[in-house]
């Protein structure tokens, strides 16, 4: 096992002017589970493939265990990769698929057999060892792909959206299994996904990429509570954060007729920057419906409900709130047992302390 490091690593595809991955600086500690997340085209898969040796590094360096591997072929990197399509060898049985990397390494047959059986036991693949990949279900194939990675005992696991071909229920189950396996084996893991729930639940740290540029790398909690810019704020969290550009008068922002005071540090930073507008970010959790009789002194916004999403344990209420110049669309978290109906006018209280404030020009976070 080893740490993995990107040093100003850049990849520009031939014929393209913009790099797919632009000067990436990232350190994955030994035994850490790092998730690379971002929308399509953000460069997360390219970054992983650069680490695997499947994509050329145009400039910069990549290190695995303090060894520079920038120009090394994949086989010299001692990594194991799990592909989105699983990429099992269709002409080989499950046992031969698992043994394939060991054969390439020149591991003796008795040891090979032992290690294949160990991996098969760990992943409950023993009854399937004689089958061909086409005779397996999606979940079984996924486990064989995991097994092929485990059996090598590599320096690092690389996983490229390994759950995206599974149905929703199996995905949740396998996600938990991967997390348990990584803790058990303690192997440095770099995991690519576009699913932020996967990223937040699996990663010790999560690196958010956009257009090939690393936006923020932090623990899931920190990413959620302290997004460094508007993009991360909008990308992390489901439903997404309410982000609205609003007039700022030095102390408060105005949502229609309602004055919403900003957290002190954010207001101070906005004043210093001489901003007359800021982007106010409120997570749906920071907005909750209140009845007219509640008088706890919280700032309230009112609006008309136009959609209610009831997920069973939670409910999300979409409402239109008067604003300037245009009405705001807000999403608030509601008690699933007391849901408003569509068309109803309701009030939502704002947890001002949980507000996020961003510079509307640079998109960067204001305050702490």
């Amino acid at each position: 096992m080893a740490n993995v490091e990107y040093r100003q690593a850049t990849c520009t595809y031939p014929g393209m002017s913009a790099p797919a991955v632009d000067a990436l600086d990232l350190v994955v500690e030994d035994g850490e589970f790092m998730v690379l997340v971002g929308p399509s085209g953000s460069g997360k898969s390219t970054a992983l493939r650069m680490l695997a040796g499947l994509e050329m590094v145009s400039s910069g360096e990549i290190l695995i265990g303090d060894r520079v591997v920038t120009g090394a072929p994949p086989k010299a990197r001692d990594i194991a990769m799990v592909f989105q399509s699983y990429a099992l060898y269709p002409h080989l049985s499950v046992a031969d698929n698992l043994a394939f990397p060991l054969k390439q390494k020149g591991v003796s047959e008795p040891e090979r057999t032992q290690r294949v059986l160990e991996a098969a036991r760990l992943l409950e693949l023993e009854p399937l060892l004689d089958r061909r990949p086409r005779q397996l279900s999606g979940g079984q194939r996924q486990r064989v792909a995991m097994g092929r990675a485990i059996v090598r005992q590599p320096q690092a696991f690389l996983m490229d959206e390994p759950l995206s071909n599974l149905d929703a229920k199996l995905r949740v189950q396998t996600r938990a299994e991967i997390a348990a396996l990584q803790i058990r084996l303690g192997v440095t893991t770099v995991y690519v996904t576009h699913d932020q729930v996967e990223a937040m639940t699996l990663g010790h740290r999560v690196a958010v990429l956009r257009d090939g540029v690393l936006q923020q790398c932090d623990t899931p909690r920190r990413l959620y509570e302290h997004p460094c810019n508007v993009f991360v704020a909008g990308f992390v969290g489901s439903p997404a954060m309410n982000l609205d550009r609003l007039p700022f008068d030095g102390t408060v922002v105005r949502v229609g007729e309602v004055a919403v005071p900003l957290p002190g540090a954010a207001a101070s930073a906005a004043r210093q920057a001489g901003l007359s507008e800021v982007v106010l970010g409120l997570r749906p959790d920071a907005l909750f419906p209140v009845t007219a009789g509640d008088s706890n002194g919280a700032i309230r916004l009112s609006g008309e409900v136009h959609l209610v999403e009831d997920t069973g344990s939670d409910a999300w209420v979409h409402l239109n709130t008067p604003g300037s110049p245009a009405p705001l669309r807000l999403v608030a978290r509601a008690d699933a047992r007391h849901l408003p109906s569509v068309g109803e006018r309701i009030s939502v209280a704002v947890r001002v302390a949980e507000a996020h404030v961003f510079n509307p020009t640079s998109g960067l976070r204001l305050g702490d």
Partner: protein
Amino acid sequence: MTTLGPMGVEGVAAAARVTSVRRRRHGSTPASVALLVISGIWLFPIYYMLIDAFKPNNDLLHYPPQLWPAQWTLANFQEAFKVNGAGPTVPQPSFLTSLFVSAVVALVVVAFSMAVSLFASLAVARFNFRGRGTMLVALLVAQMVPFASLLIPIFIELNKVGLIATIPALIIAYVAPVLPFTIWTLRGFVASVPVDIEEAALTDGCSRLSAFWKVILPLIAPGLVATSIFAFILAWNDYVYAYIILGNSGTVFGQTEETASVWLFGLINPSRVTPWGELFAASLIFTLPVMIFFLIIQRRLAAGLTAGAVKT
């Protein structure tokens, strides 16, 4: 993993898929009847060749024709195999030698065209290089040119380099029309192997070359079989090229030789009575290798052709 789901459910689902693949479709009755009639029309000449090979000479020209031999004999085969004109009607050289020449030509054509088209198809399917599109179009256009129309240009070129009436000339003449087809077809097979699988082999410790031998080659084997058969049949069955380019003056093994198809036609000679019995017996022997080969691999061939056509 420590907490795994219901293996049974996954297993049943996989088994159901296998069963559905095995399920056969049944066509309608009129379609089956039409198929039988067409098959009958196609198979009748083969049947007639088969029974006539075993008829005595006297029964061959019997009118009305006998659809089932009144007498069976192996004399026609014995006559056909008599070496170097031992029988009064058999032309030189021997049938056995001509079969050997045909086999050498066909197998060398297969080996050479497979070796070239394997790597060429890999190049056009996997690598981006200048002129790749033009090359693909050229491969396609080359297949549209009728085989027979290439005869004269190929003859002239071979004549210029002094190869006419040699076995290598005939091999080159067959490889020329075979290659565009085999490269184009194999390209489809190579392209249908997901790049992920090749990359998995690279990360599993293979070099590019060993990934090709250990992973891609086994997966495109049905394509190799399918295209090999095409090349073999073309070289084995051809008459026109063999007659014009090699004639009966091939110089393999220091003797004048000809291919089996040319030898067969040599039996029909206006200056004497055609030995129909020997002709049918020799034709049957000539047909057998291709038929046996085809019957053995036909299942694999069908799988290979469809596998190359559609990416699954």
